[in-house]
């Protein structure tokens, strides 16, 4: 294929849209991503927004950003460095420009660089004029004026007209990267169909932005990013929270169970509740509880009565659920507990990502209280991991902590849609009725069936999931220590020790029912880079780069954190050095050291931001060279 004149080919491009919270940057980024995904690029996104809904306009605190990495090759991160920054005001420029690569493009809305705007962003001099941006290709666009001009015939008021200016940027960037506009236009029609004036205005401005690119002569050429060579199949763009919700729904269907989702709104987990509440026709019941304690307790009650009980939250909410999780462990009921991690402790950084709740998931309960812990490693992977969490919970009668994080929850990537017909059903058994002929159940009765043994275990130590409503299986469960087999209250010392050991063993045995740990790279060698959760893409990319330099390094990403895969200890011991990369101060490293008595190095970051590939690459090379 011959390129038209003035078009340059690029394998990957990173664009960041940044502006005030009210400027519509998330929408602009999402729409550009959508167009790129439909076009056939691989994509990875990173929305980054402030905790305040609308911090004072124009301030540094109010800046909202959306980064999209798209390319013609497989991508696993939203990109370290920004090729093109679109900055809608001085504050957005100030907080984002350091991430632009030297020689990268900075497009600003010059109409928003007045004296007060500059002051709000704490600029002493106008950066558009003082030469401080000389190492970038600076493009000044009077986007506010051009938007007003394009809309001079529109019946909208001036404020409403001004709100269309993000479509100007979207039109311009679409032109620059050769993206057709029709997908955005369709979306505009759908979204604003009921309000034709707004729809028309947005459409007009979108085209004005596109036309501006063609005529302004600022740009020497446009860019072309070819379709990615993804494995064949049908794809859709998905965020981690959407994938998690869909995973829950599909798991319910695969098990023939209604899904009960008890939750209390909290960033960044609320979207899971929002998505699920739209799928009631899939036998999904969503319960917005009065607090996180009620959310988890209602889910436990739902599981007791035969639904797939799920509760979702973020770190502070998980802290509140702690006591009830002990109850779920004690009563050995299926339960999935989603924790979309955010920066902590306390309220911490509500909209930023972190992986610092691993200890909480593993140990955050009173008593000897083991819980299964599994973690998703990318937006699309949230689907598989959510299904897996539900499978383990129901088939092993245990509560499962499912960890994701703000980064993969809000980030998007293409998802190779699985074939519904090829998904294995989740086989769940419930004991059937035992006929009673009346009479008493107090042991001396002659007509009742034998008392039901609620804690009689199978070879996996799993007790029966006997549902209220089933004749002859009446039984009582609770948080007091149980006698094995009968499930009656029992305080005897030996029984307590036996039950603690049994609950632990039951979790340990799950290792026989999960896959072995695999690695990307050589089976043995100089360095194994270990990670878990949402850092997978960055780790994989960094390790691949170092591998290309001919070095002996492999990547091991652990999905099953409790129990660990049965071969993990062996895997770790086959490398001279082990490096554990985490967005916390070394929680997995601590656990691996304790459990496998290996030395392990750490690369850790707690800035509320994901790893950059370069930081990981540097650390890997540093370890390999000494």
């Amino acid at each position, binding site marked *: 294929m011959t390129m038209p004149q003035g078009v340059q080919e690029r394998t990957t491009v990173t664009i960041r849209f940044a502006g005030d919270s009210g400027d519509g940057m998330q929408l602009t980024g999402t729409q550009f991503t*959508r167009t790129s*995904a439909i076009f*056939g690029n691989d994509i990875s996104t990173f929305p980054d927004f402030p905790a305040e809904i609308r911090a004072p306009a124009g301030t540094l605190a109010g800046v909202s950003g959306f980064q999209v990495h798209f390319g013609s090759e497989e991508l696993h991160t939203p990109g370290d460095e920004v090729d093109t920054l679109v900055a809608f005001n001085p504050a957005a420029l100030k907080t984002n420009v350091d991430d632009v690569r030297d020689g990268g493009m900075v497009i600003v809305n010059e109409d928003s660089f007045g004296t007060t705007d500059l002051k709000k962003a704490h600029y002493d001099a106008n950066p558009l004029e003082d030469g401080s941006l000389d190492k970038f290709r600076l493009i000044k666009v009077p986007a506010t004026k051009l938007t007003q001009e394009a809309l001079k015939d529109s019946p909208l008021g001036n404020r409403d007209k001004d709100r269309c200016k993000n479509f100007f940027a979207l039109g311009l960037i679409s032109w620059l990267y050769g993206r057709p506009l029709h997908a955005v236009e369709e979306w505009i029609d759908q979204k604003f169909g009921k309000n034709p004036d707004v729809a028309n205005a947005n459409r007009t401005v979108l085209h004005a932005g596109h036309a501006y690119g063609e005529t302004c002569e600022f740009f020497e050429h446009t860019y072309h990013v070819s*379709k990615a060579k993804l494995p*064949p*199949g*049908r*794809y*859709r*763009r998905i965020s981690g929270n959407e994938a998690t919700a*869909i995973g829950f729904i*599909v798991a319910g*269907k695969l098990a023939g169970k*209604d899904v*009960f989702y*008890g939750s209390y709104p909290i960033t960044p987990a609320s979207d899971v509740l929002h998505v699920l509440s739209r*799928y*009631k*026709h899939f*036998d*999904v*019941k969503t*319960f917005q509880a*009065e607090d996180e*304690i*009620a959310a988890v*307790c*209602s*889910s*436990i*009650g*739902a*599981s*007791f*009565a*035969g*639904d797939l009980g799920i509760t979702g939250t973020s770190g502070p909410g998980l802290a509140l659920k702690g006591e009830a999780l002990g*109850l779920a462990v004690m*009563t050995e009921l299926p339960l999935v507990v989603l924790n979309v991690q955010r920066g902590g402790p306390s309220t911490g950084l509500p909209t930023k990502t972190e992986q610092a709740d691993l200890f909480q998931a593993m140990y955050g309960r009173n008593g000897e209280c083991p819980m299964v812990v599994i973690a998703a490693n990318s937006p699309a992977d949230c689907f598989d991991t959510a299904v897996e969490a539900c499978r383990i919970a129901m088939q092993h009668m245990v509560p499962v902590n499912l960890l994701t994080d703000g980064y993969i929850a809000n980030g998007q990537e293409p998802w190779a*849609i*699985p074939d*519904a*017909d090829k*998904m294995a059903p989740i086989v769940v058994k419930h004991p059937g*009725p035992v006929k009673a*002929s009346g009479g*008493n*159940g*107090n042991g001396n009765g002659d007509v009742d069936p034998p008392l039901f043994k609620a804690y009689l275990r199978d070879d996996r130590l799993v007790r029966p999931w006997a549902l*209220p*409503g*089933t*004749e*002859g299986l*009446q*039984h*009582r469960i*609770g*948080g007091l220590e149980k006698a094995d087999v009968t499930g009656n*209250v029992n305080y005897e010392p030996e029984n307590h020790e036996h039950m603690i050991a049994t609950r632990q063993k039951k979790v340990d045995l799950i290792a026989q029912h999960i896959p072995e740990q695999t690695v990307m790279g050589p089976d043995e060698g100089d360095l194994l880079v270990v990670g878990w959760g949402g850092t997978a893409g960055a780790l994989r990319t960094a390790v691949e780069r170092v591998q290309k330099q001919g070095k002996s390094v492999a990547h091991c990403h652990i999905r099953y954190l409790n129990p660990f895969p049965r071969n993990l200890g062996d895997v770790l011991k086959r490398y001279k050095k082990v490096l554990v990369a985490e967005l916390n101060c070394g929680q997995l490293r601590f656990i691996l050291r304790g459990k496998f008595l290996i030395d392990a190095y750490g690369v850790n970051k707690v800035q509320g931001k994901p790893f950059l590939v370069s930081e990981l690459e540097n650390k890997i090379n540093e370890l390999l060279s000494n």
Partner: protein
Amino acid sequence: MATEALPQLKAKDFASDQEIRWCPGCGDYAILAQVKKVMPELGIPREKMVFVSGIGCSSRFPYYMNTYGFHTIHGRAPAVATGVKVANPELTVFVVTGDGDGLSIGGNHLIHAIRRNLDVNILLFNNRIYGLTKGQYSPTSEHGKKTKSTPMGSVDNPLHPLSIAIGAEASFVARTIDRNVQHMADMLRRAAAHKGTAFIEIYQNCNIFNDGAFLYSTEKDQKDDTTLYLEHGKPMIFGKERNKGIRLNGLNPEIVTLGEGGIKEDDLLFHDEQLAEPSLAYMLSRMRYPEFPEPMGVLRCVDQPKFDEEMTNQVKEAKAKRGEGKIADILNEGDTWDVAG
């Protein structure tokens, strides 16, 4: 509720095999006996009943019933019961809680279960003390109460369970007492017949840590003057001689004597448990010993939308509108594109 050709069950059929561990003489025994007596009358098979409780002496209750039972954690029974009832609305669900369990640590869940009008029966055993933890004052203990944790008397104002329930828009509110077993049985029947949250406060004697807390309302020589047994549509009359009544004076209730100053039955307040407006019920809930006789019986019984029913209906409605959800549909929603091999 369907009554298939069930073998006629008796109270003892509702007894579990577990040894009862309350102190001898505890009011909880009387409540257990009445519940076991009334359950067979409901015509509901044992396996369709679930007793959910929190933590406290009172919350041991489910262990003693040959039904499904869940002894949960402190204060959270209404939340667990919400999940049980929503998961399977065909179950008949009882919540058993104490004054500490339901109004202290679990106050939040209690009011929210009530305001949602979840179709469960909540039995709050009020002994005005923390029994299980050996005798600290509770949120219903009277001001000045001397207990282990308040040697100089408590400086807390007590909560009044019925006022809380009515404040949360309860659709059924009643009070009864462990010593009046006939009345308790009646109240249990009424609660079971009610659709929506049925809240019963049961005065319960803790003979170990708060013995005699309710003697004023049970002692033979006193009780007729200290309690007002409510009857729907009837004037509010009480007293040994049945000559005292409650009359409204402005917005406040007052005690009057029939015949004195020409006061007739028609001048008295007539009880109406079905009023949409809960003010009368609230006023009754605020009548307290020693200023007033304390109302016993059903203060309020109205029909309101039920949470579990509405939730189930939404699922049905969504299916009717959009069809039964299929896995392939949800997977393939939104913008999709194909990558050729």
